[in-house]
């Protein structure tokens, strides 16, 4: 099956400044893709190229296997980081407008709005003016505006920035629902810790370049440093430090590393030495750690 979105060797410059350099990535349906990188790395430029606001100097963008065209824009829902609404418009009127711009008829838009109003239990808002809404309320309206036309690709640029915890949870749940429906979600953020639990695949962008791309599980394995955390009772064997490098140790907890042993072999060692093991965990690197490591590696080259 074709990925929903494919980026091949995308390049974009502003004068002498290279905003993105040979970025490639694939977004599969039914998965959440994290586009990660610090501020100014080129994430927004990439998103604007996907949504056809700007165009790449070279490289190709494919949507469901076809070169991206104007008509595909209707199958994309984009919620930008900086998002606004017309203050003087009424909630329903505004959503109908956004829906129609995405190709829905007024009636279709009205039906879908009813669905979301009911889902978020906000039916009483429809005739309120946007300026009468609180920040949290308008965030919900913005989200509905993004997904109203049931896009196959959902692009969320820093979706949680400025969201209160309740709305954050709500949006996260909706993102998961979209994934379950087989849609692709591109989730752009500079806050690495946010993506750990949500994203299936990530791309790390730094200075316009894709320095790392892959499934979160695979990347964690790839960059793991064979660190283990062992919880135990009693004392550890005397020759224990000859087998492992001890990174930290307290009364009943030790963090060790062993380059040549798998987790099973490490655990087996402790059991054979008659140590009472309470807990045993392989410490995988966080996305943030992987990112920093790779940025340093790229800088060293």
């Amino acid at each position: 099956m074709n990925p929903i979105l494919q980026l091949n060797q995308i390049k974009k410059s502003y004068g002498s400044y290279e905003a993105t350099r040979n970025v490639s990535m694939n977004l599969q349906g039914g998965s959440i893709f994290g586009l990660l990188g610090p501020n100014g790395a080129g994430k927004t430029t990439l998103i604007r190229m996907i949504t056809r606001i700007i165009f790449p100097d070279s490289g190709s963008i494919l949507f469901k296997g076809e070169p991206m065209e104007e008509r595909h824009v209707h199958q994309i829902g984009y919620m930008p980081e900086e998002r606004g609404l017309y203050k003087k418009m009424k909630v329903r009127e505004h959503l109908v407008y956004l829906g129609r711009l995405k190709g829905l008829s007024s009636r279709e838009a009205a039906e879908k709005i009813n669905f979301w109003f009911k889902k978020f239990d906000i039916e009483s808002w429809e005739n309120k003016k946007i300026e009468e809404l609180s920040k949290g309320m308008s965030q919900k309206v913005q989200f509905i505006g993004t997904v109203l036309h049931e896009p196959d690709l959902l692009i969320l640029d820093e979706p949680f920035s400025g969201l209160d915890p309740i709305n954050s949870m709500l949006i996260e749940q909706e993102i998961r629902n979209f994934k379950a429906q087989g849609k692709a979600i591109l989730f752009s953020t500079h806050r690495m810790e946010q993506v750990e639990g949500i994203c299936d695949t990530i791309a790390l962008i730094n200075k316009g370049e894709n320095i790392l791309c892959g499934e979160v599980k695979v990347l964690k394995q790839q960059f793991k440093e064979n660190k283990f955390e062992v919880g135990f009772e009693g004392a550890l064997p005397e020759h224990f430090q000859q087998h492992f490098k001890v990174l930290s140790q307290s009364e009943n907890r030790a963090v060790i590393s062993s380059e040549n042993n798998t987790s099973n072999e490490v655990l087996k060692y402790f059991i054979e030495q008659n140590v009472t093991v309470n807990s045993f965990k392989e410490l995988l690197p966080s996305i943030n750690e992987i990112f920093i490591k790779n940025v340093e590696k790229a800088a060293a080259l």
Partner: protein
Amino acid sequence: MKKILIIIQREYLSRVLTKSFLLTTLLAPIGFILLVGATVWVNTLGSSEKRIAVIDESGVFKDMRFPDASDKSVYFFYPNESFDSLYSNIQTNGKEAKFDALLRIPAGFEIMNPNRIGVQLFTADRPGLFMKQYLTEMLGDVVRKKKLETLDVDKAAIENLNEKITINYTSDLGNEKVGFTEIASVIGYLIGFVVYIALLVFGTMIMKGVKEEKTNRIVEVLVSSVKPFQLMLGKIVGIGMVGLTQFLLWAILIMLSNFFIVAVLGITMDGGMMTPPSASAANNIDADEIRILIGHISEIRFLPIFGAFLFFFIGGFLLYGALFAAIGAAVNDDGDMQSLTLPVTIPIIISIILLTKVIGEPDGSVAFWASLVPFSSPIIMPSLMPFEPPLWQILLSAALLILGFLGTTWLAARIYRTGILMYGKKVTFKELLKWGFKG
């Protein structure tokens, strides 16, 4: 195209279906009428009555009376009192004195040499400009008459000398009725002024609308659904239609008030004319003269004027609207907006300044060139229409205007596209041009 229509619809309805639109549409003509009414009223106020005592010590004018002003602002009296007693009355009583001024013709005043021992005027306070003007003109006339009498010129000859000339205008166009030029000028001015105001008001509306979309970031959402150019064009056309709707409503209001005037005052549009309006027409408008004026108005060919007005208003609106939109897209705050707006408003202001010259000399070179340059033609060309310029000039001007707005729209779209998503950067006019021409 469908998206542009959706945008136009929003821009139009969100403005027309508001209380403020209804209010300005209804109140603007009332405000205009009040303004005109207030001007007339102030003028009548200005002619407060001045009582002037004439003390003719020379006896030169003893057998005549000076004519009072026709607008009832100056009256002459001939009291049997000496100058000294009247003067002391003015000095002690000021404005409460019997007379507002003393016009003294001193002993020794010679009619053939009136400035050797000159006529004197004494007033309690500083004499007003109108009174001074009236006295100078009136005394000039009177002295001239006296001089002719002294020279023993025949009375009939004097009357003959004073006769005013009436010119019978004819031209190939065949409609050069007396007073036609004046009516055409008034209509020309009115049209020019309406286009001028409309360009500024609705141009600013576009600029503010674009800036609002940019600063509240709705544009980020919109440009992922529509192209920036569609967004810009939709806004310009939508707001342009708001302007046209307003004009249409005003036209209906004017027609309704016209019916009202006809019904109430009993003035008909087919009134006879041909009688030249007298010089004092402005002062004493009676029903006959109104009939003549209305007669001239009915001579004007309104359909081509209206057509030209519509075309040049729309053309000018697209031309300037695009530029205003580009500025709205480029700026981040009101301070930037003011400095960048100036280069766009200057040609509009120059056009309205040229209008006087153009209407004074509708076939002159200023009128010709100003009616062709796309930056001034939206104001100048429709103003020239009552003077019936040659068709080729109108068509050439229209073609140039179309080229003009295609050009500015192209340029503006490029500036708009770059500016609308650029935040926090203070933009100079030079930079705008760079965005426009280099993309």
